[in-house]
């Protein structure tokens, strides 16, 4: 429940009430957006766009879900769009550069040996890389399940995918993360 019925007041056109909601939820939306996009600039973009869209769609909000869940839904869908777009651009750029690239560079990146895993920052970098290797759908579903604690059913509803497809996305994400991170985790132990 929002303090002082801010949602209801915002719905009736009180922009001060909406300001309170922005101030209350911005940090959480930023955390979610950063985990989804893996990029600070994109995360800022998502935060801004999420609140603008929320404001425009306030009439559509129903108190059945909490306001933060509703905001997360908007942020998730916008992040999904953004990641898909970024991936398409990256794919296009990669295709363009493919001919110029040395064959050695096209080989999969080898897992760094134990001597290279000295610092947790390096592990964190590998985690970010592993998350970036997930498809947009996988990453979004995984972030909502793993970091935000949403149930698979809720995620399916949020992203407009069925329960089975959501389950599959999360499972694929975990599989990929294991493949990328297990060597790192086992050498770091």
């Amino acid at each position, binding site marked *: 429940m929002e303090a002082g019925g801010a949602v209801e007041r915002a719905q009736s056109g009180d922009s001060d009430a909406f300001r309170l909601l922005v101030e209350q939820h911005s940090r959480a939306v930023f955390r979610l957006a950063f985990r989804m996009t893996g990029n600070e600039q994109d995360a800022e973009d998502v935060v801004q766009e999420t609140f603008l869209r929320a404001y425009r769609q306030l*009439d559509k909000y129903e108190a059945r879900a909490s306001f933060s869940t509703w905001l997360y839904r908007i942020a998730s869908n916008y992040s999904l769009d*953004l990641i898909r777009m970024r991936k398409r651009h990256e794919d296009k750029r990669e295709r363009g550069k493919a001919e110029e690239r040395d064959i050695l560079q096209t080989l999969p990146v080898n897992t760094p040996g134990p001597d290279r895993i000295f610092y947790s920052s390096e592990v*964190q970098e590998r*985690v970010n890389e592993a998350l970036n290797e997930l498809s947009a759908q996988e990453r979004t579903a995984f972030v909502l399940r793993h970091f935000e604690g949403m149930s698979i059913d809720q995620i399916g509803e949020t992203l*407009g995918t069925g329960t089975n497809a959501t389950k599959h996305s999360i499972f694929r994400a975990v599989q990929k993360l294991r493949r990328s991170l297990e060597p790192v*985790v086992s050498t770091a132990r």
Partner: protein
Amino acid sequence: MNHIGEEQLVLFYYGESAEGAAIESHLGECEACREEFRALQRVLNTVDSAPVPERGPEYGRQVWQRIEKRIGRPRRSFMQWWIWAPAMAVLVIGSFLAGRMSYRAQRGGAQSIAAVSNQQIRERILLVAVGDHLERSQMVLAELTNAPEGKGKLDISDERQMAADLLDDNRLYRQTATSTGEKGVANVLDDLENVLVEIAHSPSEVSNQQLDDLRQQIQERGLLFKVRVLGSQVREQENQPAPRKDKEGKKL
């Protein structure tokens, strides 16, 4: 119990397995599965270490300052039909997508004349909303496809804004088409959504190269043609006269 599959372990880790008690008991007995589960836990716990840049207590205020001006304009009224129509469209667009907009009055005889009439009016208004959505999308695509190339950059801020405005409704229609099993329509709307996203996230002013990229996206998918055909189908349905019905809502 056989060894536990990876998918089951993942569901168990997140507390979403329907066989939680059986898995727990198996893990107590089976060293191999226990080790597999520990490996999974190690990886997922490591993922938690991915840092998120901190935002201080002032952050909310900063966000508000950035969006305040754009929010300043009066919010659209709930009573304006073009706002609620897309949301309500979910209720009936499935009927259109399934090609069953022929007023299926034969389903039951208990509807009152007033109810049938209200339903007809609502469906017709909603068809207009869907038709408008496709028409506006078509306009954005056509504007970009036919935009002249010049020496400098081209201002596409209007198209960009329009694409951003169309996205939410498009998503709603696509999800409905998917859930009603209308793959063809869902595919067109999915293609349209991807291109609308590209346009909405383009800079306000694009170079010839960027414009070419957008055009290529539209042309590769034959999108303008597909949206035009779908739009015509909706308009056709929209212009069909409503069949007359008797008191029980049956077709005459």
